[in-house]
């Protein structure tokens, strides 16, 4: 099966996260601008005279669909890149995905998730050099 991971992250960390994901071979994603807050509540802004509070803060939401066996490594990569240690760093949700259909080719499931140079492709090449982890099929195991 595949998983969808939904990542809420700081706008200013997006480039770091994207670069880190690209480095491990996560090539497909989409992003939406969202507003909200977690437990930290809100922040203070400067007004004309004095300050005021806002509680709906701008964040980016990253949506990525992955094969199950790639989820943990991806989560680790995102956390490393997105963390500042201050409240407001964001959150990751993981959901099951029933199916995936690539519209151009109508490929479904594992095949629809494959790209040249993706995380499994990279692992397979690494495996050919003797460093494989045993997930070495070209499919992503949906």
């Amino acid at each position, binding site marked *: 099966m595949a998983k969808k991971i939904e990542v809420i992250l700081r706008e200013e960390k997006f480039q770091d996260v994207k670069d880190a994901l690209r480095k491990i071979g996560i090539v497909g994603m989409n992003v939406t601008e969202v507003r909200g807050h977690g437990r930290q509540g809100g922040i203070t802004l*400067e007004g004309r005279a004095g300050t005021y*509070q*806002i509680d709906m803060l701008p964040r980016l939401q990253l949506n990525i669909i992955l094969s199950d066996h790639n989820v943990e490594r991806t989560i680790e990569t995102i956390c490393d890149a997105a963390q500042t240690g201050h409240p407001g760093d964001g959150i990751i949700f993981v959901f099951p995905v029933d199916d995936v259909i690539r519209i151009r080719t109508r490929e479904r499931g594992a095949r629809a998730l494959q790209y040249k140079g993706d995380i499994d492709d990279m692992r397979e090449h690494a495996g050919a050099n003797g460093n494989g982890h045993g997930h070495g099929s070209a499919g992503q195991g949906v």
Partner: protein
Amino acid sequence: MENLNTGDIAWMLTATALVLVMTPALAFFYGGMVRKKNVISTLNLSIIVMCLLSVQWLLFGFTLAFGSDGNSFIGGLMYLGLDGVGAAPNAEYAATIPFLLFAAYQMMFAIITPALITGSFVERVRFGAFLIFALLWATFVYDPVAHWVWAVGGFLRNMGALDFAGGAVVHITAGFSALAFALVIRARRGFGKAPMEPHNIPYTILGAGLLWMGWFGFNAGSALGANAIAVNALVTTNTAAAACGLVWMFLSWRDGKPSVLGIVTGAVVGLVAITPAAGYVTPLAAIFIGALAAPISYYAIRFRQQRKLDESLDVWACHGMGGLWGAIATGLFATTAVNSAGANGLFYGNPQQLLIQAFAAGLTIAFAFSVTYLLAKGLQATMGLRVSQNAEEVGLDLSEHGERAYS
């Protein structure tokens, strides 16, 4: 006609255009500070006043303010429809430009003053009620006060009150009328609970910049000629805006970070404060007038916030209190060394002038506040001042105008 001076005419035509642009500049100054669902409505409250008051002023506003067949409280009707106001100068006001140019220049002041008040009731006012209010307010507040202070025979002018470019006539009337209106219409839905964030601070900064430039027409133009008084007024105007913006920056910095919305607000407050004084004080005095205006308006905003009063864009704190300080400061810093047609203030050995300034300001405050309060109450009882709850929640752009700013 041989007295007409082309230099004076050219400058006053330019100054008239500069003052006109202040109204759309004000529209953007205010428009940036409201939520995005109300920006068109807020811009329009200023823009429509250009249309409405241009006609009112031509038909009967000018004669109520400057008609010389009236009494010391209101002008007569001799200039109804600008009858007899033409190419010939009127030496009692401006001996070297056509009287029609004087009337056109004054028209721009009559336009911007009701527009200033709109900051007090944005995001909830019923547009139809506002149109009636603007017309009545111009007729029953602005025109009489302009007559008292500026018209030959006006009783505050006879008393010796100094108001170079409208500290009392424009800013005190607008500021204290804004306060009265806010008390009647009450707060926006959700005020104090939901954050009401300025939706486009760049608009506000742009508006403030254009206001600063337009104010050269407002103050230096009030010399009514291309002369040394105009030059002095331009320099004092620029100086006060700069000094007030700087001090406001430090006040804001001390309370957190130096807010840019605060800096431009300070610049506008400095412009307000120097308005009555611009042609009577030295550039050095303008630094003090501008610098001291900042804490007065800054803490007036804080006071208004603590009282949980939704005078939404602080017209009272900025224009009312800034204008009051300017009127008083004129009584402190005025000197006949700058303008022989003026008077000396307290610091030049004439404490009497301070009392005259305080009296004129106090009377203007009481008159503008009470007439506006009654007008607002009357409109509230007859046609209603506010849009419906649903219309307010949807936003006035859609509910009042059927338009949206950002598609």
